[in-house]
């Protein structure tokens, strides 16, 4: 076969495979992803659906026991009603009141029940925007 033609066929085949893979990637990423919502949005959302909650731990509400951890989370801007959360599983070291967290879970009877080992805490701000002067 003419080498140029062969090269072209190869190129088209390779591009075709790449496009197919890319489509699979895009498709599954939309179905496999979890929506991130703040507590006030989750209160209004469909119960029973898994969400990724992002918000701030309300100071003074953290209650540690050996079995589980319960605390309240409010929107990042501090507005809206705080949501009660229970969580079992590992708690990352940086977890503490007043800090932003991300937690995957479901709303069960007004309480957000976190899936074990999905709690992510944002690091103590190494690079804080506003300095407390």
């Amino acid at each position, binding site marked *: 076969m003419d080498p140029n033609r062969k090269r072209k066929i190869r190129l088209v085949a390779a591009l075709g495979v790449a496009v197919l893979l890319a489509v699979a990637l895009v498709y599954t990423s939309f179905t*496999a992803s979890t929506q991130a919502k703040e507590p006030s949005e989750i209160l209004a959302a469909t119960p029973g659906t898994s969400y990724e909650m992002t918000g701030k731990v309300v100071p003074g509400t953290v209650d540690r026991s050996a079995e589980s951890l319960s605390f309240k989370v409010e929107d990042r801007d501090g507005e809206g009603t705080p949501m009660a959360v229970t969580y079992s599983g590992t708690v990352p070291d940086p977890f503490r009141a007043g800090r932003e967290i991300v937690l995957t879970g479901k709303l069960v009877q007004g309480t957000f029940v976190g899936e074990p080992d999905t709690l*992510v805490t944002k690091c103590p701000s190494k690079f804080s925007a506003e300095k407390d002067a």
Partner: protein
Amino acid sequence: MPSLGGALLALAFLTAIFAAVAALLGRNGDRRWIDVSRRAVYAFFFLVTACVAIVEVAFATDDFSFSLVQGHSSIETPPFYKLAAMWSSQEGSLLLWAWVLSIASSAALYATRNRLREIVPWATAVLMGVASFFTGLMLFGGGVNPFAELSPAPADGIGLNPLLQHPSMMIHPPMLYSGYVSFTVPFAFAIGALIARRVDAEWIRATRSFALIAWAFLGLGLLLGARWSYTELGWGGYWAWDPVENAALMPWLIGTAFLHSIMVQEKRGMLKVWNASLIVATFSLALLGTFLVRSGVLQSIHAFGDSTVGPYILGLIGVVLIGSTALIVSRLDDLRSEKRIDSLASRESVFLVNNLLLVGITAIVFWGTFFPLISELFTGDKASLAAPWFDRYTTPLAIGLVLFTGIGPLLAWRRVSWASAKRVFRLPLAAAALTAIALLLFTDAGGEPWAFTLFVFAGFALTGLAQEFWQGAAARKRVAGGSLLAALLAVTSRNRRRYGGYTVHIGIVVLLIGIAASSSFQTNRDVTLRPGESAVVDGRTIVYERPTVAVDREKFTFGAVLSVSEDGKQVATLRPSRRFFRPTGQPLGTIDSFFAGEATSEVGLKAGLTSDFWTSVAPDVTAVQRRVRAADKGFEACVGGDPGTPPQCKALAATMRAAAADPELRAPALAQIASIQAATAERIARSYVADGTPATFRVIVDPLVTWMWIGGLIALAGALIAIWPARPRRRGALIRTEADALKEAKYREIRDAELDHAAGKLSDEDFALLDAELRREAVEILDRVENGNGASAREKIPSS
């Protein structure tokens, strides 16, 4: 002192601009301007070094008139962490960026002072353009000047976050930065080569070691980060597909692809557009990594304060991407391949496949990392992808990489005959088959198809690599005699790039074995035990012997003594603990404030070659906290002089009133209160031991995870072998001109072919053809040198 630093920084900024302008004035080869610009780069290095020195002296001497020092250090901070605290801040890390850039730029320009006359001016302009961007950012970016002054200077600083007080955490950022920044050098020279239309392999030869150094630094940074996460963060993992981790992984992956594909350009004059695109991508991703930590765009476990410098860095990325793309497109005619791939069964075509795999993995990681932004754009909801999604797509590609890591070294450049292929593939294929059979017979690895495939491919790759070493050494021994070990050392030190590269391959394969085994066959259990109780995890019995507790001025430490036994024999005593720190930077709070600060885990780890036994503890501190609150309340009542409080309270209340009235008495009063608090805290802490409250333990049995760290270290050692400069064979035969460099490169190619032939990778007739071709090319180069015409001859003029 802050004002002196500020002045030096401003001077450095001006020097960088001057160096860039001078370099541009010398773009047509005007020696005076080029020399001036190079010296200006050296001056920039000295100025930034002085800035760094001033900051470090300020940290060491507790000069709190520096807002930077006040915010990230305190008198109490241990000396080692004082020196390392610089890069825990936004300002300090930008200064570190500029400093590493000044070192890399000076080294690169010194190394090329007599070479690449047409490219160097442009490269200098790019390097100093980036340098002036970062110094300018510190000066004018708003709130990120490391020399911001506090007046009057406070008596003490806020201190360094206890989470960051870990040795590897302090080495990890500078390693990552050195990696990110060193990629600027090959990028700058690539841009220079494109502008000057000198797109042969010269710029690659001049900057390859910088790309390798950058790659090694970035790799070490990633490894240290993983290690820190494994031993300090208390969750037992080493990789979480966190945006910031991904941000450092992506330039490393593309950098790996670049290091391979530039070899194809060097040897075969192909893939020029690809190489230029890869280095642009690597540098942009390195900038993106710098940006992500400072932007607050994505949710991450890492520090993500919104900051003012994000948009500027994004702007720089935009300029780099648009400018480079336009440049590459305008130079497409110059970037045509000189040759084509002769055969699919050749090393260059395997490199191409490996490049596609690496770029594929990067594309997946990129998509997953930025998915929250993409999804918000299309659906209006911020949705994110978790680790399983990343695993699903990267696993098959990583396994493919292991296979090609094994195949690549077995193939010769250009083409491989069927006979020689059979010879070199026989043993590795047999090893792969044996691995598969052994795994199926003796382990349950068959239940995890991905891990199983990876192990089989790893058996293939490792045997192939061992065969390479063996045959190289055997060939050397035939020529030079001596022992096999001596021959191995000799052949390695004479072909550092080749055998260094192979060593990296061994390391990466071993590392991937560690990852595959530990992620597929991990046992992960949470058990709640009272003191004296025991649990069985993966055939091992753990007994919660006793709780421990300690209190000092900064923290409560709740620990556990665990004894681990297997088959009735005690194998380890582990002491995991959890520490609760007081918030830093507050003079004196209630005892309860201990539980409002950071909490960190100290892991109890028994590492082993076959498996790690990893434990962390989550103590139940509810009762302790309740007592602490009661004690705080009691103390308040006491100093308030409430009825019914003991008589000592009256004295204490009087002391406090006196202290409030007379500042002289404040210090002794505070000391008295602190000692009362300490005694109370100590008493309450002891109650934790007496109570015998249950604690929850996370127990992880991680098979072969140690090999991940060992593999990483092997890979680093291989990179070191490859980077280590070869001793010049003859004294005074230093590579002084471009023609010499070309000649050297061609000689190396001839030696490579001879080695491949001796090792049985090239059949006699293939070798004869290849050798004749290479020698003809070498003669052409020598002719050009002799006749003294053409571009290369101009380079012969020695420089000052």
